[in-house]
């Protein structure tokens, strides 16, 4: 990024872009630290079909801490811009204050990443054969595209494709909607000869599930939140509902208007939360309210950023007794 041209990009986004470019993950953590969740799962590293875990879930607790830090600053008289610019600058000098803060405050939950572990469990259970690249998994770089750094995005995409090809990858199962869309729809238009087959986890589940019986351990009312990327970008609206409806014990109650292609955005994603941390939280609260009003005990969704936002919304609303989980977790529990 040259300094002159990036002058109008908000500092929060410059910071994220820097992380992707220098560390190959949106958090800017050291290489491979996102792979801890799979340590004891013995997933093969070499495979034609790989499970693409994505930054969102692999670094979720670090991202949560960072979000809450910049939200705090954004609400204070300091604002988020100056600290984000300073953080970006310090990183160049080799001091990573945001990273230090994250390490201190993150509740060692990185290694859990329940949606990822459950997704893996579900796929294995359904007899799908796949591997996981672990510390070799590259960042899809989707955010570079959304930030406007198209040249950097294309460069990242080309390097990534080369790497995946050299590792013998032919098919990708994505779990994060945004990574899946990037790999399936954005990258093919800027990488010559791109021939990877990309599917979202839910599509693979639907293909493989057949007539298997799914039963949730208890009777429960759930509502479903469509993420923008899964519903409006990837067009997967009926698929998650089909799965939810097939699970015995689950009663699906939906918002009357804001569902499917009309779902309200959680206020995160696309880097918005790094530019308008406080506004992003206001939008999270609004969306959470719509979902809570259905009377559901569980909000099911499919995107790490949505999960962070909706959890934050519940906290702000002081709504107890409502959980937010990824659909993969629900399916795992129902198997």
């Amino acid at each position, binding site marked *: 990024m040259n300094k002159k041209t990036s002058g109008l990009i908000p500092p929060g986004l410059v910071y994220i872009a820097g992380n992707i470019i220098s560390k190959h993950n949106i958090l800017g953590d050291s290489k491979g630290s996102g792979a801890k969740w799979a340590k004891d799962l013995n997933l093969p590293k070499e495979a034609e079909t790989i499970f693409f875990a994505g930054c969102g879930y692999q670094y979720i607790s670090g991202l949560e801490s960072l979000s809450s830090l910049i939200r705090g600053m954004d609400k204070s008289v300091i604002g988020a*811009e100056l600290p984000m610019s300073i953080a970006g600058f310090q990183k160049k000098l080799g001091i990573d204050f945001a990273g230090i803060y994250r390490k201190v405050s993150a509740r060692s939950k990185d290694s859990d990443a329940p949606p990822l572990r459950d997704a893996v469990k579900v796929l294995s259970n359904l007899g799908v054969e796949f591997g996981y690249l672990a510390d070799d998994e590259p960042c899809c770089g989707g955010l570079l595209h959304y930030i406007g750094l198209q040249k950097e995005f294309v460069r990242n995409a080309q390097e990534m494709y080369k790497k995946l090809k050299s590792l013998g990858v032919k098919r990708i199962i994505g779990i994060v909607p945004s990574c899946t869309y990037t790999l399936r729809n954005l990258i093919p238009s800027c990488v010559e000869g791109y021939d990877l087959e990309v599917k979202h986890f839910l599509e693979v589940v639907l293909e493989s599930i057949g007539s298997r019986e799914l039963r949730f351990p208890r009777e429960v009312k759930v509502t479903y939140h469509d993420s923008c990327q899964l519903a409006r970008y990837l067009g997967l609206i009926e698929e998650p509902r089909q799965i939810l409806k097939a699970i015995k014990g689950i009663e699906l109650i939906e918002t009357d208007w804001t569902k499917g292609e009309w779902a309200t955005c959680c206020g995160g994603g696309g880097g918005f939360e790094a530019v308008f941390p406080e506004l992003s939280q206001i939008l999270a609260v609004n969306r959470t309210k719509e979902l809570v009003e259905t009377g559901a005990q569980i909000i099911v969704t499919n995107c790490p950023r949505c999960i962070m936002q909706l959890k934050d919304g519940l906290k702000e609303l002081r709504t107890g007794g409502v959980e937010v989980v990824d659909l993969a977790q629900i399916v795992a529990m129902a198997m």
Partner: protein
Amino acid sequence: MSIFTDYKKEIMDAAHNDRIRIALSRAIKSYRANTNNALRKFPHTIKMAEEVKEIKEKAIGEMEKLAQQACEAMEGNKGKTYIAKTAKEALNIITNLVGKGKLIVKGKSMTGEEIDLREHLEEHGNQVYETDLGEFIIQKLKSRPMHILSPAIHVPKEDVAQLFSRITGQELPPDIDILVATARKLIREKYFQADIGMSGANVVAADTGTLFLIENEGNVRLSTSAPPIHIALVGMEKLVPTLADAYRVAEVTWRYANYTVPSYVSLVSGPSKTGDIEKVTTYGSHGPRELHVIFMDAGRTSLAKHPILRQALYCLRCGGCLYECPVYAVTAGYFGDKYFTGIGAVWAMNSGNVEKAASLAYTCLTCGRCKVRCPMEIDTPEMIVELRRLIAEGA
């Protein structure tokens, strides 16, 4: 970053303003209900929107030709026509026509807002009455419009009562009927005293040179027919080839603006005339004796050449997208410039305000619900990412 910092402060103040949020949550609810109802009642609208999209896609590529054609048709109808390459040119043409010290009644026009037309006329010593109720409120509050169709969408009735009490010197209650009647009384006589009436146009048929003016209040009818001179400022993207095309554009526009049918649609093709005495055509019978139409380019023809950003020109200005934007729902038009939300960023860029465009472009969530609502299926997220690219690359 100073424009961004000021903008962010403004948008956050709005986000903390409960009145804006309450006013908008009501407006969104009734917009959705009304539009669903209108589309259910007239289901052909959806197919018609597809046809209109084709009409617009084509027309946007030939705006200059259509403008030429419309000018010829209107001149044939004894109207006077002008093509303004820039906003400044448009203002100069209007200043020359208007002169100084005139009383002007004006219908609401986004194109007028785009070039600060009212402010310009006032600076030149004219008295301008905004006749649309919402716009009148905004003018008197010295505020700026917050929605393209309902400019005062963020102002509750209590604030209107206070404002009108100050204007009339009478204590007025926050009763909407009384407030509407007050505005009627305040503006009524101005139509007949005015030297000039001004309007925009929702769509223009190039073959007949006909302006379509869609409204509910009746203020546009009065503004464009009572004074002796009518001046219309039209963005070139409003042009379509035929009268039949224009009719379809109009119907889709009002339907997605949540109306089964508006109270009034005026079709204006020339000045008022009569031949009732000895078949001698004489101008200025009951309506205006002069009609002046200015077609304004102001970046539109170059915008039309951009493969992605040209979509902004398909916009019918129905305002539907605004009700679907989660950010707009808490900030109203503060997420905007002359035009609002994500698509507003494209217009800010088009008018050369790059910093404002950047601020707006990075406020868009790229969530894409506006696109679901849009009868023209304008892909605002795609335009926003392209804008960000242009901004990042310093283009």
